């Protein structure tokens, strides 16, 4: 690994990954790509920042066959997916699916890129009472047409990358990560837990799993080193019931009949501009869905090690 291209580099995860890569002497260059005009964080001689509109194929081509070739980038970490669940339309799809497809296909033709790591989400898995509460990589995908575009796009992008495994001259790794409750990361749970009172469905208290930024970065670093390719679940260290997550966050949880929650949170979203959509989370607020990380442990050597900083989250 000499040069790494990171898309979505200005998100909390992207920034942490860039910082972590720069701490490694073996990395000659980090090419950070995002939509912001300038790199908003600390500078480094080995860090190259570029604002790129990834919805345009020409821009991706210029990126990969221009500066990325000059820097001899050999690994790509693609994590630039749209984060706001309320947005929809062709522009959103172009970023979520189109850019992923282009990044992958152009990386296959690239003279120096040898590895493609796609950061996917646990949202791609279907959660319902018929499916296992502990989710393996073979778990059914969420292909329901009633899901918002954000989820459908994430599934399509994930499957697009998976179809090239073993076919492309690249090492392809897909990391299906548990939710990272962090601001500006598109986390539904983060938005849900911002209110002092959190409503949850009466009679249900499913197990949820959340991932820390530190573990997410570590999993990505391990994926950049591995010789294996495949799909890997990346669970977090925190596995707990929803009610206890609410309490640990310092919020008051109130259980109300499930059918009321959709209208209540739709009203909240309409009046306060919040991102949490109950309909998107209905299944996982009723039925447990915890990622099984055994494959990542056995092949990547990944074991969740960092809990969320609950006291800090409570204080925030």
């Amino acid at each position, binding site marked *: 690994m000499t040069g790494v291209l990171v898309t979505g580099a200005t998100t909390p995860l992207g920034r942490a990954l860039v910082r972590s890569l720069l701490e490694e002497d073996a990395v000659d260059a980090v090419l950070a790509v995002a939509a912001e005009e300038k790199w908003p964080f600390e500078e480094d001689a080995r860090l190259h920042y570029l604002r790129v509109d990834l919805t345009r194929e020409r821009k991706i081509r210029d990126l990969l066959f221009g500066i990325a070739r000059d820097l001899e980038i050999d690994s790509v970490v693609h994590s630039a997916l749209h984060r706001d669940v309320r947005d929809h339309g062709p522009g959103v799809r172009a970023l979520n699916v189109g850019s992923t497809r282009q990044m992958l296909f152009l990386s296959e033709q690239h003279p120096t890129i040898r590895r493609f790591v796609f950061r996917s989400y646990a949202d791609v898995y279907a959660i319902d009472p018929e499916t296992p509460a502990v989710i393996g990589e073979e778990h059914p995908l969420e292909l329901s047409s009633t899901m918002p575009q954000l989820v459908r796009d994430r599934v399509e992008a994930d499957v697009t990358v998976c179809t090239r495994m073993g076919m492309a001259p690249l090492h392809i790794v897909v990391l299906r990560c548990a939710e990272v409750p962090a601001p500006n990361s598109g986390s539904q749970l983060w938005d849900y837990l911002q209110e002092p009172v959190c409503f949850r469905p009466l009679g249900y208290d499913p197990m949820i799993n959340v991932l820390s930024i530190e573990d997410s970065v570590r999993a990505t670093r391990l994926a950049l080193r591995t010789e294996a390719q495949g799909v890997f679940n990346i669970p977090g260290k925190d596995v707990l019931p929803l009610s206890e997550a609410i309490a640990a966050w310092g919020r008051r949880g109130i259980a109300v009949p499930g059918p009321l929650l959709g209208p209540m949170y739709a009203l909240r979203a309409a009046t306060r501009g919040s991102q949490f959509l109950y309909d998107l989370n209905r299944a996982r607020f009723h039925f447990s869905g915890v990622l*099984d990380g055994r494959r990542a442990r056995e092949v990547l050597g990944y074991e969740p090690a960092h809990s969320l900083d609950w006291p800090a989250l409570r204080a925030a």
Partner: protein
Amino acid sequence: MLAAPRIARTVARALLHPRELERLRTLRWSDAGHGYDLMGLNPDWVALGAGIVRPLYDVYFRVTSHDAKNIPPSGGTIVAPNHSGTLPIDASLLYLDVLRHTSPPRVPRFVADTFVPQLPFISTFFSRVGAVSGNRTTVRRLLDEGELLVIFPEGTPAINKPFRERYRLYPFRVGHAELAIRHRAPVVPTAIIGAEEMWPTLTRIERFRAFGAPYLPVPASPVPLPAHIHVYYSEPVLLHERWTPDQADDPRVTREAARLVQDAVQRLIDHGLRDREGVFA
């Protein structure tokens, strides 16, 4: 300590003898980090479950346990009992029986029907005391982790078998046999005597499908009858010594293996029926 386990612990303290509580503190379980395992089990809730069942077990049904030494003290194990009683009261009595007669106590991980996670309150309670939804991935994982599974091989239909069919086993499904062969887990044939008379089903309302339930059972009496329950455990059947794991996919093998287990349970039932002095005695 957060609210729910604290409440569970307080109630369990009121319901259980201190010695029993102390014993349950030695429970073997795998903490996923916040006092729960991956499936939602919590030891305080296990104690609460034991506390709730205790009056039924000790006083109402006066359960007598036979040969519990046949339950392996560790490692992946499948307990395969007969099933009856309109509601799974037999399962709750077996739950406490296994907890009491294994040392250190092993939590029986009951494999429930897939409609159970849809039931409000019950789904949460079941997962906290260790029950899991019956799907292959989950039970395989539990066996890999050396847990003790309780699988009713007759399936949900048996719980509402007509009174005239009591103690006649429905044909065993093959899932437990396949798991036992594949994961090299011993199967402990188990007979619950008395449960098939405790609460006969009068009829069932097939059109009742709330929360995914297959039907609504209507029992013949308003409350279960105080039958004397006997639980018998046979010596483990070692299916994996007869077949290799790669034979677990062969339907003839799994059918034959399930039949062996069914025969063992039927023999145990016949023995238990011969030995008891009466339904209520």
